[in-house]
Structures are given as C-alpha cells and as structure tokens.
C-alpha cells in the first residue's frame, strides 16, 4: 500500500522533472550564451517565475484533465525555473578570459559548446537540478493533496481524514527522507561527472564532508 503510493509519487516526479531538465537546460544555455535574447524573453520568464506552481493546479486540471498529465505539468513548472536560471547563470559566469581563448583559437560552435560552455556551466546546472528536484518534490505533495487519489500527498491527506496520526507522520518523514536521498544521489553524481570541482558543491548533508573528505560549508542547495 505504502510502496504503491511511493512508487506513483516517484514516477510523477521523474516524468515532470525529466521534461523540465530536457527543456530548461538548452533554453538556459541559449539565454546565457546570447545576451540579446534575455531582453526579449527575460520579462516574461521573470513574470512566470513569480507564480507558485500550486496556483496553476486548477487551470492545469482543466487543461490536462485529472490524470497524470496535470500533476506532471505542475512538477515541470516547479522544476523548470530553478534549472533554467542556474544554467543561464552558469553560462554567464564562465570567465571572459576563457571566451577569449575560444575566440583566439577560432573554436567551432560544437567545440565551444562541448569544451567550454557545457563543462563551464555544469556545476551551476547541477545546483539547478538539485534545487529543481527539491521544488518538484514540494509541488508534487501539494498537487497530490489537492487533486489525486494516490501518492504520498494523498496518503497524508487521507490519513488526516481518518485521524491516523501515525500514517501522517510516516508520510511526512518519507517525503523528507526521499528528498535527502535524491539530493545525495545528485551530489554523488556531480562528483562522478565533474572530477575537476574541488568540493564547492556536493557536500553531504549528513556528514558535512564532500567526496574528498574535506569539510566545507553546506551549499545552498537544500532549501
């Protein structure tokens, strides 16, 4: 019973989060790379960013029905902006001196992308992914509380109506526990994929140490 609720919640997060990553990273790279684009789409994105994902739930249900699509849409919305903004910031923060190297050696577009832009922005992209995952997890529980007949959010709400405090507590702790697990998974992945980072991000919340065993201040990734 619990496992079913957990599985369906995870599946919803995975779908929405995946679509958000696939769309937000390229758009973020484009916005970071071509400053002129920011003038055109910046205000619109900034406006959309201010709206809490939960506010869209009624509209999404009307557009996408009460099935899985509306929940995935809410999660997509929640994860999209942290990933987009961090990716854009990551590209913008690549030092001018490295761009000059790319200019000097007349690197073709594809080399600039794979050798400069993608690796240069990768730590920020990972921060965005971790923030986005946290946001989608929150949005999911909210969505399930409002309109669902399964999932961890639904479990908590249905336990409330039956005054099953034990079930509610289990649901709440599971949400937190899974959140930490996924975040740690990203931290490990980050150190695997980005061996040159010196433990700026990817600090274990549990031990406070990074993959090199060095104690660092906790990153801003867990809100």
């Amino acid at each position, binding site marked *: 019973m619990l496992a079913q609720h957990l599985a369906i919640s995870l599946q919803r997060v995975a779908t929405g989060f995946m679509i958000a990553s696939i769309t937000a990273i390229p758009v973020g790279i484009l916005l970071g790379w071509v400053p002129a684009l920011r003038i055109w789409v910046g205000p619109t994105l900034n406006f959309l960013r201010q709206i809490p994902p939960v506010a869209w739930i009624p509209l999404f249900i009307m557009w996408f029905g009460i099935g899985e699509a509306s929940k995935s849409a809410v999660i997509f919305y929640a994860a999209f902006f942290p990933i987009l903004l961090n990716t854009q910031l990551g590209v913008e923060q690549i030092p001018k*001196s*490295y761009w*000059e*190297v790319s*200019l*000097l*050696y*007349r*690197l073709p577009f594809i*080399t600039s992308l794979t*050798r*400069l832009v993608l*690796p*240069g922005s*990768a730590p920020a992209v990972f921060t965005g992914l971790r923030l986005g995952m946290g946001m989608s997890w929150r949005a999911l529980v909210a969505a399930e509380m409002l309109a669902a007949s399964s999932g961890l959010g639904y479990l908590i709400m249905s336990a409330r109506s039956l005054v099953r405090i034990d079930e509610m507590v289990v649901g709440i702790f599971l949400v937190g526990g899974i959140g930490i697990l996924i975040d740690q998974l990203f931290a490990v992945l980050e150190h695997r994929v*980005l*061996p*040159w980072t*010196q433990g700026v991000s990817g600090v274990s919340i549990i031990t406070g140490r990074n993959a090199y065993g060095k104690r660092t201040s906790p990153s801003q990734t867990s809100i």
Partner: protein
Amino acid sequence: MANELLQVKQVSKVFGDQQEAVTALQGVEFSISTGEFVVILGPSGCGKTTLLRMLAGLEFPSEGRCFFDSGEIKGPGLQRSYLFQEPRLFPWLTVEQNIRLTGAQKDIAPLVAKMGLEKFLKAYPHQLSGGMAKRASLARALLPNPKTLLLDEPLANLDGATKYALQQELLRIWQTGITCVLVTHDVDEALALATRILLFSPRPGKIIQDAKIKLAYPRNDLSSMYIDWKQKLMKWIREE
C-alpha cells in the same frame, strides 16, 4: 617587402569615451621580419599589451592598421598564436584535452615530449605547478603550427629557475623558425631573448628606441657587452 611578417602602420588606440579618453598608443609604426625575436619593452600601462592584442586580432586600433603576411588583421588567426599572461587552461579539461583544443586528431607526442609534459597529460590544470601550466599553454599555442608567437609577459610570476628554463624553451621554439614577439617590462628578460628591442615610452606609448641586439646565445649577463646594453637601455628609460 616579402619577408615582413607583421606590420604596424600609424596605430593609435584610445580607450573610453570623449570626456574620459585615455590614449594608450600614439602613432606607432614598425614592422617585424620573419625570424626575428622582437621584445617590446616598456613600463606598465604604456599600451604594449594592447599592441600585442591588436596583432593577435583580439583588439582593434582606433587609428591606423595592422598587417600580417600582407593581409590586414581583422580578427584572430591560427597562424598568429598568442600566449596570455596567465595560462588560461580550461580547468575542466585534462592537460591533453587542453592541448588538443585546436586539433583533436593531431599527433601531439613530439610536442608533448619537447615540453616535458608526458607525465602530466592526464592531470588537471589545478594539479600543475606554475611552470608546468605555462608549458601546457605553450604546447596548446604551438599545436596549430603558427608562423608567429605573440607572448604577453609569459614569464611573470615565475621563480628564477623556472623562468630561466622557460626562456631557453622560448629560444628553442624561436630557433625552429617561429617569429616571436614578446612583451615585458623586465630589461634582463628582454636582453636574454631579443634580437631586437622596441623601447616604449610611458602612456601614451610610442617607440623611443628601436635597437638590434647583436649578442650571441646563450647570453651571459655578466659579459661586458651585455652590461653595456643594459646600461644603454636603462639610460634611455631614465631619460623618458
């Protein structure tokens, strides 16, 4: 003339807007022939780095024009390699990937052996010493087989021994037929390397002396001719 590789014709450079214009260079004119090792010597802020960046195609003159191989310089080109003051290796690429930036398929083994980088190919830039990082960036600059190497104070911030070793390395590279243009404010470095020194005045930079240095390599900084040259240069610098 056929062997004039680089030409600078009446070049001036002004930074900033009309109210706060700073003239970095004024009416600079010279040409460099194939096979020369030219050192542009001048105090900080005399516009010598700006001039070198113009030859690299990273900046453009406010007035005048620069030429390479009889064609006007309108942007960077692989025939004109440029060594920045800092190594500027991409921290996320290994030394090998950094060197291969301009040619993934090329055979880099001879170049790597010449630079003494064999053991560091798989290392990341943060694992290298200052001298090794310089060598790696030099290897990256040499991979496209440039005709000329533009060097922006490449030996600043290095210890004495590393500096000496890299000076010898630069001379070896020059002897393979690559025309070198090096910018520095260090008189000894200029005398250790140059076949010709262009002495610049403080801002706005212009050429105050154009001296051919006919001293044999390797140069002995205790020889009387070396000391004569040093005194001459110091006198010119003080007179400005």
